[in-house]
């Protein structure tokens, strides 16, 4: 079943158009990776879907058109974005960051607290720092916090914007492992944009290649790595 479908998605900043009509699909339970170099439009794609910038074309989520909705409606519909560069609330404590992540939920404080415990179990380093300001965490911890915060809204689809940026490969692996686990065990669907092809390809069910705002190739990870030209250009081997 298709969870997310964009058709002819366009977006940009002021007079500059960055996305030139993207068709992207994410099926229920899928991890889809969009690979692209700097400036290809990865972040713009994320922001166009999450409704934080004006966009054209259509975005359907669970068969409902959401491209006219604001960012807060998109979150309520079940799409949570982990922004590029973590985007935590630096002045707020780790716990308050997570509480803010649950802002759209209406199922009561006790189940929100239970979820918080759950993510502390997945990310023990956050549990140790639960009353510290988010701004005092290391880059890797902030990225964990950003992911946990997004998960606090109990999303159906998680958007991840370059989670590996600025992190040691080992920490990136750890994060990707958590995302994979969530996908396998809970059926969480994930749309992840990355520059770091090697790590991201491993966990992707399907991959799109993004070049200057246009999808130039798509397919399974195996199909794309079998293509010589693509392998050389994006995977470096």
């Amino acid at each position, binding site marked *: 079943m298709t969870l997310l479908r964009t058709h002819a998605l366009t977006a940009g900043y002021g007079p500059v158009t960055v996305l030139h009509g993207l068709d992207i699909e994410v099926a229920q339970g899928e991890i889809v990776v969009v690979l692209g170099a700097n400036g290809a439009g990865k972040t713009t794609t994320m922001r166009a879907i*999450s409704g*934080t910038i004006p966009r054209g074309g259509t975005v359907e989520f669970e068969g409902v058109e959401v491209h006219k909705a*604001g*960012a*807060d409606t998109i*979150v*309520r519909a079940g799409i*949570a*974005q982990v*922004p590029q*560069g*973590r*985007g*935590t*609330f*630096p*002045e*707020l404590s780790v716990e*308050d960051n997570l*509480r*803010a*992540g649950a*802002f*759209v939920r209406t199922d009561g404080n006790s189940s929100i607290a239970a979820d918080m415990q759950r993510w502390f179990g997945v990310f023990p380093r956050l549990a140790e720092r639960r009353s510290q300001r988010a*701004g*005092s*965490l*290391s*880059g890797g911890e*902030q990225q964990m916090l950003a992911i946990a*915060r*997004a998960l606090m*809204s109990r999303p159906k689809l998680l958007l991840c914007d370059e989670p590996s940026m*600025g992190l040691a490969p080992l920490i990136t692996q750890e994060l990707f492992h958590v995302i994979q686990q969530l996908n396998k065990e809970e059926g969480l669907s994930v749309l992840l944009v990355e520059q770091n092809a090697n790590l991201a390809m491993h966990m992707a069910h399907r991959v799109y290649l993004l070049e200057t705002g246009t999808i130039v190739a798509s397919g399974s990870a195996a199909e794309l790595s079998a293509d010589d030209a693509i392998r050389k250009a994006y995977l470096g081997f």
Partner: protein
Amino acid sequence: MELFLQRLVDGLSEGSIYALLALGLVIIYRGTGHLNFAQGEMALFSAYCVYQFGEWDIPIGIAVIMGMAVGFLIGATAEVALVRPIAKKSPFAVFIVTIGLFQFLNWLDGAIWGGQQLPNTGVGSKQPRFPHLFPSADTDFVRIFGAEITIKSLGTIGLVLVITAALFLVFNRTKLGLAMRAVASNADSAKLVGIRTSTVLMVSWGMAAAIGALGGVVTAGNAQSVSQSLMFQVFIYASAAATLGGFDSPGGAVIGGLTIGVIQNLAAGYAPDWVGQEMKVGVSFLVIVAVLLFRPSGLFGTAKVERV
């Protein structure tokens, strides 16, 4: 000793008013990064309304709550109708817009209530003087260590403490407070967790003006009248209080306000020859300049640091 205590309490009481307006400035600044130049005039409009409610025989306790509601409406409307559309074009222009709002509100006061001090028997006011929130007759004082401490001073200080405690609870224990702190910390991410940032900003402006309205009513009560120039100086001291405490710290605004009130009163009281009533402004500004040289973000303000 008695004199010192008396000056101290007078200073705290005066400072409490600065604190109320400074709190409003800080709430708005945290949300949008704007200095609301019209903060004092919003409070003044509310004070004029409270005078009007008094003319309609509404007791001061109810009138002040109605005045705060009027303040909330003015603040919220200003954010939606003026600040929001302009901020999209240029953040700096917002400052100019709040100066415009300052002038507009002051003109509006004059247009509705005239240029004279109110209450005024000349225009048929029924009230003998602008009502005070607290008992303020000459006999309403308590003796502490020989010093005559007026009830209205104690009441004003208590009022600020109650408002500060209430704000603390709102910020730290409610969903609205969490949203306000999140927007202040990172507005883009606040949107991503589903917070309607525009609603939060509207409420912030409303709250700021409502709290400021209290400051306006107490100022008018102390002066026993309301007039168009009532809030000019108070606003300047309030801005100074917010600067001293740190523009992003509500607690700092309160401590900043109280500090300025106390410094002014002690300086004017103990060095009347070279400070006196006229120059007491100067002393507090000297202190502020000294503080800012060492702590540019104010005593309790946070210098923005971010690790990536």
